[in-house]
């Protein structure tokens, strides 16, 4: 996977990587800062890896184990129960669960119908924003402060254009 490791408990990026050997078996756990704090990983005496491993093994689907939608907290288990997703962002979060499902469900797997014009406008603005922010970081790193200032001005302009769109 190209993605950075995700926390085994929530789906935030993992920053704490723990390896323990118990009964001659290697156990690895990846956690984000918050979960690491909450589970007492930073306090060796109060921390039980076995607890965490048990939780992970409770999830019936190992491929999507422990993943939750960052937007709405929905889990694959919820989908199994309801047959509906939690929010639009779930489609990104549970791509692995969705793709096999889409095979054979529809005529194709790629949309070829109506496109909301405003959604596209918005998307192109956001793409531009992301690119400019990348440029800005690079310029600052390279100490090209004139470029950085220009990027910042452009970012402000794009942000204004986004804000001018009517509120939902």
């Amino acid at each position, binding site marked *: 996977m190209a993605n950075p490791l995700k926390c085994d408990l929530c789906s935030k990026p993992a920053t704490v990587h723990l390896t323990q050997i118990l009964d001659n078996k290697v156990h690895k756990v990846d956690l984000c800062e918050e979960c690491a704090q909450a589970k007492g990983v930073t306090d060796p005496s109060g921390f039980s890896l076995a607890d965490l491993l048990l939780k992970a093994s409770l999830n019936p689907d190992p491929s999507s184990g422990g993943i939750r939608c960052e*937007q*709405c907290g*929905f889990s694959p288990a*919820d989908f199994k129960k*309801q*047959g*509906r*997703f*939690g*929010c*639009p*962002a779930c*489609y990104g979060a549970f791509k692995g669960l*969705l793709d096999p*499902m*889409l095979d054979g*469900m*529809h*005529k*194709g*797997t*790629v*949309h*070829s*119908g*109506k*496109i*909301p*014009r*405003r*959604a596209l406008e*918005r*998307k192109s603005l956001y793409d531009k924003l992301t690119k400019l922010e990348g440029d800005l970081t690079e310029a600052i790193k390279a100490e090209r402060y004139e470029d950085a200032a220009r990027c910042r001005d452009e970012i402000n302009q794009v942000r204004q254009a986004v804000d001018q769109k*009517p509120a*939902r």
Partner: protein
Amino acid sequence: MTIESLIDTPSELTDSASSKSAIVLMTRIRLARNISGQPFPGWAKPAQREKIMEACRAALMATPAMKRGLAVSVGELGELEKRILVERHLISRELSGSKQGSGVVISRDQAISVMINEEDHLRIQLMRAGFQLRKAWAAIDDLDSTLEETLDFAFSPDLGYLTACPTNLGTGMRASAMMHLPALVIANQMEKVVRAVNQLGMVVRGLFGEGSDASGSIFQISNQTTLGESEEEILKRLSGVLQSIVEHEMNARARLLEADSGKLFDKIGRAFGILQNGHVLSSSEAMNLLSLIRLGVDLGVFPDSKRSVTDRLFIEAQPGHLQHAQKGEFEPGKRDLLRAERLRSEFANFARPDFTLSANGNN
């Protein structure tokens, strides 16, 4: 507009039944839309649902299509009112039983209804009498584009419009036709038709959608898939299937007349007799009798102008509408008596059947 005045006004469905709608009674298109960044109705918290409903309602009431329309939340509706709206296909059974924070906006002519916080944030629906897929699409496309000016719809370039259930992804469009197919039912060919239609990626349901029976020989045929094809392609495919079902029904009618017109006329004549004189009629018996009268109109046994009467009665013989017409006390046990009474009075002045016309194959 108030709910009372809506109920006392004929709906799009009960209106304008011309000979053009002989077999296809009504065309309907619905679009599923959701607001980006918001949880779907089934997962949203009550406060979120309320907020989404307010935003959607405001956007809808600002459109020209909904000018002087009706906006109500499900909580404001009584059981009887909900039932009547379901019988008119203006809301779904699912919405009528739903939680706080859902509602519906209905256009003044009752051709458009938009359910808010049903399975998706918005279920936009447009009805047209007769076989009008293209016109219906043009009108609903227009309304959808107007809404898009003020609402941010959840959309992905790959998956199209994002819906609570993956079966609606892509266009989020379900187009359907309500068809009256008595000859195919009499000739026992419906099962074959259903199988063939399923193989073409279309679904057949009864008059009131999923799980309802096909009393009155009325069926809804709609597209099953929504992703991978454009709206136009789906409509073209559906249109072709509908066209061929119409042909099959016409052929079945011709064959019934040719093989045993006496038997067919007997059915129509008896239906007329029962409707004129019966005293206890269940909903499904009434539907089947009305269906035969409608077939009689198509065959020229009754004047063309009477088609709108049968179409109106299809709706008005439903429990909710009967109860409303009765005003006041209503015992469920008396419903079938009341229905028969209602139909007797309607058919007291109905044209007498003339079985000579159709001998020339006039339809």
